[in-house]
């Protein structure tokens, strides 16, 4: 798998503020790569540097081995799907999709438009104006418009956040399968760890302009490199420097069970969440430990129990 997009020592400073600090990443051919992080972590800055809307303060972006330094957005073979979709409101769906065609030499443009329209099921929407479309349809038009120009890398800025929550998991799966079909490298910008975990081949976690960790979803969730990474990908109980995820924490009414790490605690509250029971406990040293368990028979608030977990489920941070 060759590298398509390479970021070398990429930094961006706005006046005094450091938006991105020495980011190094290699993104492979056909990969679905996520840039994950809280707002202000530098993920959007990274996207804008790759697309060419901003110039880096230091470092460079390389596309297929060539430096993009000094190249303007229209000279870069990357395409962006904006969070707002940025459809041209004065053009029809068809005209939107065909917008980039005249700048793209070679290949059969008409056929690509037809393919993209079919793939994104926009056949009956072609004559509509963007204002007549639903959020999901707008997104499909934006995707088709970007795919028609056959970019080396497709950048997607928070593609799901503008959608109805009920639609998100469905669209997530559709994006994943679309990416597999077209084989183009997708760089997915998101602040939602569940989104990143569920679609990505690899994730780069950013925090305050710096790369925190890069790896597969499994790596990041199970073997986070830092306390921040562990906490950002999901809730963690930190018990004497060792992390345990709530879903790996058990509640045992009887003391002295074998084969596990355990600790005495008092149940403070339990909340039914539908798919699980969210139990808050406090250990004798005053530590709060949360457990998500399937059921909890005969345990009440104020009751003394033991919280337990398996040694292999512990998160150990590198020293």
């Amino acid at each position, binding site marked *: 798998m060759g590298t398509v997009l390479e970021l070398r020592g990429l930094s961006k400073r706005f006046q005094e503020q450091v938006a991105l600090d020495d980011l190094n990443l290699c993104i492979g051919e056909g990969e679905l790569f996520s840039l994950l992080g809280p707002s202000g972590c530098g993920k959007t800055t990274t996207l804008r540097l790759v*697309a*060419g*809307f901003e110039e880096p303060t230091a470092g460079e972006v390389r596309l297929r081995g060539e430096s993009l330094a000094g190249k*303007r*957005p*229209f000279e870069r073979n*990357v*395409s*962006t799907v*904006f969070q*707002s979709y*940025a459809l*041209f*409101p*004065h053009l029809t769906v068809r005209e939107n999709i065909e*917008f*980039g065609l005249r*700048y*793209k030499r070679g290949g059969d443009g008409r056929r690509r438009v037809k393919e993209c329209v079919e793939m994104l099921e926009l056949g009956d929407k072609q004559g509509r104006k963007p204002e007549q479309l639903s959020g999901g349809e707008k997104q499909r038009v934006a995707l088709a*418009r*970007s795919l028609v*120009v056959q970019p080396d890398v497709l950048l997607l800025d928070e593609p799901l956040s503008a959608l109805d929550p009920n639609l998100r998991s469905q669209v997530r799966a559709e994006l994943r399968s679309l990416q597999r079909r077209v084989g183009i490298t997708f760089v997915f910008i998101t602040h939602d760890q569940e989104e990143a975990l569920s679609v990505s081949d690899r994730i780069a976690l950013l925090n305050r302009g710096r790369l925190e960790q890069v790896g597969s979803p499994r790596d990041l969730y199970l073997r986070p490199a830092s306390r921040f990474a562990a906490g950002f990908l999901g809730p963690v109980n930190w018990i004497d420097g060792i992390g345990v995820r709530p879903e790996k924490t058990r509640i045992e009414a009887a003391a002295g069970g074998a084969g596990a790490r355990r600790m005495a605690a008092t149940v403070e509250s339990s909340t039914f969440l539908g798919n699980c029971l969210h139990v808050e406990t406090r250990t004798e040293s005053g530590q709060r430990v949360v457990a998500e368990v399937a059921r909890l028979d005969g345990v009440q608030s104020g009751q003394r129990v033991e919280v337990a977990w398996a040694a292999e489920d512990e998160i150990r941070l590198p020293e």
Partner: protein
Amino acid sequence: MRGLRELCLAPAAAVLAALFAAPMGILAAYSLMTRGAYGGVATPFTLEGWRRMADALYVAVLIKSFVVAGISTALCVLLGFPLALFIARAGARKNLYLALVMLPFWTSFLIRTYAWMFLLRDTGLVNTVLLGLGLIHEPLPLLYNWGAVILGLVYGYLPFVVLPLYASLERQDPALEETAADLGARPVETLFRVTIPLCAPGLRAGAMLVFIPCLGAYLTPDLLGGGKTILMGTLIQNQFSSARDWPFGSALSLGLMALVTALLWMQARRKGETLP
């Protein structure tokens, strides 16, 4: 609530009725009467005023007015668009530039037109400087011609194009231009395929705000044209002053107004807006 709403609207309605509808009614009545010997109007009622409008002489003035207003509007748009774009992209300085655009409104239009006369006349600043530099040997005829009239109109109405255009451009989502660039469009192509089409409403509004007053302009053609340039505005004014033909003047006023209204209505209908 309903009563309160009507109460609040009443003063404006009264002002409109008294200062707009009533004079229009008077104008309509005058246009159907006979001219008085020393100005004013007299009986009997006649359609003479309206009939004279079809005279080739006056049709020529109307056409000339349309041409001058059209040229002035085109120049205002050509000059105003880059200016509006510049201001809309000026970031923190936006408000300063907008204030500068509106600064001339702080002085009377009459005074500003006189200022142009001082600049353009034979012994004015421009000719004095050019003569002093030896670039010319006799004053250029800068004043009292069509050029001076159009210059004055463009100068006077430029802000009316800049402001609506600025409002249109300011509202535009910057992501749209970025998307165009992202899809491979160069800045010029983005300008013509995205930026300009998107500010079409502002462009139309601005053009109308310039075209209509230019069509009926009186002050500028009178002062900068020096009476040699007869346009609709000056023609109408003449009827009420030197020609003392109030019925014809009234008919011309209403006729011009009707024509402009009809044009606006047709244009709006073509755009598919709902109208009575």
